[in-house]
């Protein structure tokens, strides 16, 4: 509450919202020497600092990729942890340059909230977790159950819709942070905990006894998660969008962190354009032409980042599924660089 007031005061008096920042986000970032990245501060796999303050996660990697493209230095990404509730105000007021915080792309957020979604870096859907002891096999059996949920999310809206559509009685217990919601669920305050399926996989790790809980099969919504920027700066919008596409294209062409230097010698015109050995594709974005090379060199391609943070190389062990490449049965499809 207090932070919202301060942000508002800043926005109103100094007028950071648009007057100073619009159309010059890139310049502001270059002058400042770092990117302010609105992140999740508590979600394993997406955004979480460790005890030494080192941040990891799919969304964290995304910001590091941006920093690599602009500064050739991933450590120039600074992370601002935001709760679900405060994140939009933080972006609107200019406190962060972008929001890469497992945020669902919806029509109202894309329009009246003053921001634009750039691309989808994780295709998700909402699920439920319950205690095994309850012997529940389907979300449709949850009528009359108490459900713990986090406020300021699409989750709480989908939950209400789902129960209404299926004529089930609902007892929601709403918390401001997922930490509190998970703790209350773990203490038995609720029968079920609900959030994005990826979030369930991450939050599970915080429970006292992981094996006492199951995730139900139903996926009750579409949650396209992606980075968002403020309205009014097309250049910055393009940079953020193409950072994701560069990582996906790199995976498609088989360019990895390990082989990117060799790939620079490749004759494949697609690879040459992406890595900047042919054409002036970086310049058009306001970046050096080897922008994508820097991203892959420092962070890796989309698949590498996925496996490291949420896939088999992580405790979450999420399968690629919808997030596989388009030519491998998934939905990740990037427009060509040309």
């Amino acid at each position, binding site marked *: *509450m207090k932070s*919202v*007031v301060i942000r508002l005061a800043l926005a109103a*008096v100094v007028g950071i*919202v648009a007057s100073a920042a619009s159309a010059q986000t890139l310049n502001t970032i270059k002058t400042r020497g770092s990117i302010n990245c609105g992140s999740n501060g508590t979600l394993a796999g997406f955004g979480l600092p460790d005890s030494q303050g080192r941040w990891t996660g799919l969304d964290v990697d995304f910001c590091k990729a941006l920093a690599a493209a602009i500064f050739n230095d991933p450590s120039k990404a600074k992370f601002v942890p935001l709760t679900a*509730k*405060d994140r939009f105000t933080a972006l609107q007021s200019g406190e962060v340059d972008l929001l890469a915080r497992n945020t669902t792309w919806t029509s109202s957020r894309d329009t*009246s909230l003053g921001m634009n979604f750039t691309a989808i870096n994780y295709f998700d859907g909402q699920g439920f977790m319950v205690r095994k002891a309850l012997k529940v096999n389907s979300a449709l059996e949850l009528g009359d159950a*108490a459900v713990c949920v986090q406020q300021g999310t699409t989750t*709480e809206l989908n939950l209400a819709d789902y129960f209404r559509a299926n004529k089930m009685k609902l007892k929601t217990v709403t918390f401001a942070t997922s930490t509190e919601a998970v703790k209350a669920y773990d203490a038995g305050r609720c029968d079920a905990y609900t959030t994005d399926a990826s979030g369930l996989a991450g939050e599970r790790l915080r429970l006292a006894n992981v094996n006492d809980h199951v995730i139900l099969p139903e996926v009750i919504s579409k949650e396209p998660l992606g980075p968002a920027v403020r309205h009014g700066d097309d250049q910055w919008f393009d940079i953020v969008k193409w950072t994701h596409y560069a990582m996906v294209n790199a995976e498609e062409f088989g360019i990895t962190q390990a082989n990117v230097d060799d790939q620079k010698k490749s004759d494949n015109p697609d690879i040459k354009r992406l890595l900047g050995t042919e054409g002036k594709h970086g310049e058009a974005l306001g970046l050096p032409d080897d922008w994508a090379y820097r991203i892959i060199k420092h962070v890796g391609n989309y698949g590498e980042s996925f496996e490291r943070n949420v896939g088999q190389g992580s405790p979450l062990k999420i399968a690629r599924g919808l997030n596989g490449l388009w030519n491998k049965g998934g939905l990740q499809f990037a427009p060509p660089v040309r």
Partner: protein
Amino acid sequence: MAAVETSRPKALLIYNPKARGIAYQVLLCALIVFLAWSAIHNAAENLARAKIATGFGFWDNTAGFDISQTLIEYSTTSSYGRAFWVGLLNTLLIAGLGVVFATILGFIIGIARLSKNWLVARMAGFYVETIRNIPLLLQLLFWYNAVLKALPSVRESFTIPGGTLLNNRGLFLPQPVFGPAARFALIALVFGILAAIVYQVWARRRQMATGQQAPILWVSLGLVVALPLAVLALSGFPVTFIYPESGRFNIRGGIEVLPEFMALLFGLVIYTAAFIAEVVRAGILAVVRGQTEAAYSLGLRPGPALRLVVIPQAMRVIVPPLTSQYLNLTKNSTLAVAIGYPDLVQIFAGTVLNQTGQAVEVIVITMAVYLTISLVTSGLMNLYNRRMALVER
């Protein structure tokens, strides 16, 4: 007239202190108005440029989210405006009950701290010093987690005789349903309350005139409690109860008191009572010792001496700081957000703000609400204080 004017040397207007004073005031006002206007104008312009929705059109839009405690009819298809009222009532409920209980507990502890009994005084002192010095947020989290951990699951609910159930989903009380014949008891209750007021006025007048005391407490209780109960019994007890019973997941039926509510009320009362205790202690100590001695020498025992002589005088010192404790309690109730109690800040300045993205409008409304609650509270307390002050003889 003209003669007077010429007889005095004509001073320039800028040397006239009154005119200068007025000019400064006008300038200051103009400056403030200009600053406010430019801040509003600037904000509006920036919001428009960023294409962020503005205005109060959202008020009637469908909220779409569920709320765990609603004192008025509310469903997920209700409007944001309705959600606002739900939140406001939840805030008023917690603040109202908090003020009542914190006052009672605070007075008890404040008086206990002055007790001649060493142990009682020390315990009261220990309470005040510990509770005052631990941040309220920590206390709330402690109470909430303690409540959740200590209470059994739904299946192992404690049954309190009379059909009340207690578990980690809350306290479930039997819900009375009154039959048509219960209206006689209602009439008796209204009559009882009126009669008790008349009786008290009469008893006070008589005491002023003759010095004779009347058993006000017992007669009032009889009129307000026993009389309606007797009428209820005579009309054949037309009350049935809906008893809470366990369903598959939760308790169904009955009146539900959420654990979030209990923890918040508990935390706020315990915390604020520590401050009120100090206010009360200071108030009592401010009454000169001679007053107590005079009361004793008139033959009053310590209890009545405190109640009839010391406290009424102490009240004049107590009420102003007590008012700020009430205001603090109300404002502190916004910490509800940390433990999931759906107060105005959680619902309106939290969920509604986030879902609509209209931070400026929502925060302005929320601040106006708290300002109004605070002004009304201090207005009422000032009224009360003025009445106390008039009693001075």
